[in-house]
């Protein structure tokens, strides 16, 4: 256990997409990396995620997207976070084709994790995204 303040990350599935295998694996990976994971699970809305992020004082929001809805839903999440004035980076994983990565980053998504990212890469990208906001 380090002296660094523990990272609290909120994980959620936004919208109707029910593929939660990857998100559950990531929850365990981040726990094993020493983080506190608030797992919201399925069928969340941008409102419900923002409300939870406020109450839990989350350092980051992680979304997993498998239904090709990421170009609509991820920017909507970023906007909701900004509207609520939360200093909370939005991290997107799941199925995102290469060509969509830059547009998502341009829309304010902090990190896009591709398929095949190792456990270390996942944990480090969360730490980096949180550090970037707090610096």
């Amino acid at each position, binding site marked *: *256990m380090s002296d660094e*303040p*523990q990272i*609290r990350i909120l994980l959620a599935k936004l919208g109707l997409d029910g593929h939660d295998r990857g998100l559950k694996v990531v*929850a*365990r990976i*981040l*726990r*094993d*990396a*020493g*983080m*506190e*994971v*608030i*797992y*919201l*699970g399925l069928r969340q*809305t941008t*409102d*419900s995620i*923002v*409300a*939870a992020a*406020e*109450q*839990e*004082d989350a350092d980051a929001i992680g979304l997993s997207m498998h239904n090709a809805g990421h170009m609509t839903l991820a920017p909507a999440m970023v906007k909701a976070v900004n509207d*609520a*004035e*939360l*200093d909370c980076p939005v991290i997107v994983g799941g199925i995102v084709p290469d060509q969509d990565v830059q547009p998502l980053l341009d829309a304010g998504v902090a990190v896009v994790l591709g398929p095949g990212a190792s456990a270390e890469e996942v944990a480090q990208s969360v730490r980096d995204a949180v550090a970037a*906001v707090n610096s």
Partner: protein
Amino acid sequence: MAAKRSIRELYVAARSGERRALGRLLTAVERGGPAADEISELAHPDSGTAHIVGITGSPGAGKSTLVGQLVSDLVAAGKKPAVLAVDPSSPLTGGAILGDRIRIEDGESEAFIRSMATRGHSGGLALAVPLAVRVFDAAGYDPVIIETVGVGQVEVDVVGAADTAVVVMTPGMGDAVQANKAGLLEVADVFVVNKADRPGANDVRRDLDLMLDLSHMTGQESETGYRPPIVMASALHGDGSADVWGAVEAHLAHLDDTGLRDGRRKHRMRTEVKARLEQAMSAAADQAMDSTVGAEWLDRAERADIAPTRATNELLALLLNTDLSNIDMQRNQELS
């Protein structure tokens, strides 16, 4: 990015209803240290009225579902409930998955739900939980529900410190026996047999009744005439949450009628101050051991010059004559 606000600014904002500020304060509470002490000083005069309800039971007993029901009922009744859900951290990594967050369907709901990890040390929890409760209270939340998982010592301590302690059980898990071993039966004010539509629910009820009969001579019943009720519920099907809350409020009325609520408050204050004292003493002991004088006494004990009891007594005498918040062993070196 919003500018960093002081603890006092956050406190004022939280009192005026800003949930983001309350969220921040609770993080400071969890981290402890001077910021948490400042919050304690601020919140103390503004708190003391909320009804504190502890709810525990073994994993899978359906607590979260029940608490979710209670929270919806309370919000519908115009109340402003807060929930502090305590989950265990991994002892290996310090990480935790707080996966049982109650879902509040309406984003504008009056309820406030906060998850807290045990972070591997029950001492930290013993300080953080009462302070978090005080902050909720000061921010206008009432009741404040503390939910813990499991039937270990931590749960007994946390739940036992509430005004009303609720223990949730289910058929077929040997819960009654477990709870008895853990000492939960002594602190429980309301029992809930959840999943009461399952086979074996009546067996649990009978076991509980029997154990309450046995503890008749020593338990609270003999002193005050209060016998903890056993409420049958089926939270998953939305049945029984009204009965559970009815029993919780009846218990509060009993505390008020008998003047016992003050006793609970005193007990809580005593427990909290003692926990703080223990933590301070423990920190002082660590410091003493790491100091030059500590090393010398340890060295002498190792060389069989003196017994470890003597070394301990010498260091204790030293500590008790010192300002605990600022021990400087170097200055007292000549004492050895």
